[in-house]
């Protein structure tokens, strides 16, 4: 796989991005029990860069904040703190022309009352295509490109299979001619054989339209297949970031190691020594002090793990946040 990330300016950059969601306590709880409003710290200080033409994989388990981060980058959520730069410029509302998002759920991501023509037509109109004939031609062209037939244009979403719906969602995103695409678990709801078709389609489109992907997934083998670089998240923080091959060959952070060991694989040679983590991911409302992973970590270094958040360090080309490497 070609490593496209050249030197030069990054296409997208996240600088210490935070996204907190308030969870208001009930009025009764406030009055009687003295409860306070709480914060879900879904993303709590994340920085990284994405260069033009590359695919960055974002992995982590549910509740790690990867989906929230993707939506912040797609400008669906306003970050609580920090900033997002697009070609070194802070981005504002017109960002949609450059960024699109592909959703996980092929059933709820398409409006059930709209035909395929309406769904893609709206995107084309947003792009500024005023002439209905041009729009029609472009709609059909996009449909063919994502592997659907022209006669599908008048059908409603419920008439399609999951894989076909995902193709429609991809066509909608492409209609805007974005440079950067956030793909939020685009294949995890699909069957294995359909998954492969969609993965290949995404790769072809990347070549053809010079797209840059942020590929969010919990399935590490898909991430491995598609990404040039991988960012591992846990409880709103980046645990480790590295080139794909290097990360899979030599995971440094204990969490990454556990994650890799947990994927069931077909090939015997691929199987790593089993690491069974204790417990579950703690609540992002009340995250552990220090390193967020210390409650489940099997390689704790000492008391500092529980007291202070580890500084990010560069080790063997990896960016790691772990006291073991400080």
């Amino acid at each position, binding site marked *: 796989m070609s490593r496209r990330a050249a030197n030069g300016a990054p296409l997208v950059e996240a600088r210490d991005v935070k996204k907190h969601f308030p969870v208001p306590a009930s009025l009764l709880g406030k009055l009687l029990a003295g409860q306070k409003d709480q914060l879900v710290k879904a993303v709590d200080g994340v920085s990284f860069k994405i260069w033009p033409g590359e695919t960055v994989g974002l992995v982590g388990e549910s509740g790690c904040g990867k989906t929230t981060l993707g939506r912040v980058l797609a400008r669906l959520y306003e970050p609580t703190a920090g900033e997002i730069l697009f070609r070194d410029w802070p981005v504002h509302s017109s960002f949609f022309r450059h960024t699109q998002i592909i959703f996980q759920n092929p059933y709820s991501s398409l409006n059930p009352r709209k035909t395929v023509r309406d769904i893609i037509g709206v995107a084309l109109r947003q792009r500024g295509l005023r002439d209905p004939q041009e729009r029609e031609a472009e709609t059909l062209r996009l449909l063919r490109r994502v592997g659907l037939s022209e006669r599908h244009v008048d059908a409603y979403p419920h008439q399609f299979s999951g894989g076909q719906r995902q193709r429609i969602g991809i066509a909608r995103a492409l209609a805007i001619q974005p440079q950067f695409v956030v793909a939020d678990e685009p294949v995890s709801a699909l*069957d294995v*054989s359909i998954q492969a078709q969609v*993965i290949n389609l995404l790769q072809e489109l990347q070549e053809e339209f010079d797209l840059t992907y942020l590929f969010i997934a*919990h399935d590490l083998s898909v991430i491995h297949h598609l990404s040039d670089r991988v960012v591992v998240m846990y409880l709103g923080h980046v645990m480790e970031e590295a080139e794909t091959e290097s990360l899979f060959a030599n995971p440094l952070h204990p969490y990454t190691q556990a994650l890799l060991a947990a*994927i069931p694989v*077909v090939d015997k040679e691929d199987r790593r020594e089993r690491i069974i*983590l204790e417990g*579950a991911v703690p609540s992002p409302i009340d995250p552990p002090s220090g390193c967020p992973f210390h409650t489940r970590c099997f390689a704790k270094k000492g008391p500092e793990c529980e007291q202070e958040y580890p500084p990010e360090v560069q080790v063997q080309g990896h960016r790691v946040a772990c006291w073991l490497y400080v």
Partner: protein
Amino acid sequence: MAEPLLELRNLTTVFPMRRGAVNAVSGVNLRVQPGEILGIVGESGCGKSSVLLSILRLIRQPGHIAAGNIFFKGRDLRRLPQKKMRAIRGNEISMIFQDPLSTLNPVFPVGEQIREAMRLHGIANASPLPWPLAGRRSHEKQRVLDVMAEVGIPAPEARYRAYPHEFSGGMQQRALIAIALVCEPTLLLADEPTTALDVTIQAQIMEVMRRVNREHGAGIILVTHNLGLAAEFCDNIAVMYAGRIVERGPAQQVVDNPQHPYTRGLLACLPQISRQRSRIDPIPGEVPDLAGLPPGCAFIPRCSLARDACNSVDLRLRSLQANQYARCILYEDGVRYTVEEFS
């Protein structure tokens, strides 16, 4: 070989639909030996869950088992009266479902639900001491706490009174396994038990199931879409497509050396960490509509090796090597072509 724990013979389950009859399971033959872990692998709609529900005779109306036998410890479950069937469900054969939160009752404490499962089958009375000496309740409770500890629910004493929503997804699934285990079943049916869970939690749950299998010798049928999981966890696997078993054999042997074009296709389109490929080879097309499926092999429209004869031959599972079977024209007539020769 000893008498199998479970044997399905020509199991056929039909759902009449407006579009026509759907054979969710058609002519499935399977055996599970005591203590064996069998994986049933396939994509959605291939009938793998229907096999499990058929075993417990829980197929929802108007669906029904149209043909075949389900021998469990030598008895044909299909001919058992409802009452006896109920005594087997949850007692000798237990089932674990994919979504624990919708399976657990939200208004009862988890511990009580486990105890209820035990009480339903009259296990609780087996106290070593007569009633006034050992309170029946405390004896029951002790058994529940033991099971909770066994499936890895930490601090079972404190968790006994907790409600399902207070548990994390992984803990809920453990509670479900505890319910399934409390009667010490000899056969455990698990329908995608870890699909809703994260990989690290999946690893924990599979570890629990592995221990149950080892320590109690319970047979397990694991239904999953995840070939990797099946390969790691199971002794044998059966690959299903469109209601039929297309290949079965020892798990590692099947994934290392798949014979049926569908199994090969599935493995080829799985992104694998050891193989760096710029493209994966997908299986073209989609799973066919099971209503009004033409005779012959159901995989023809997606198979690169398909030929005219595939339409007409009534294919059967053919023995290949060391317990591996496949249902494909490649292996009919006792002649075993290699794929290269055939194409």
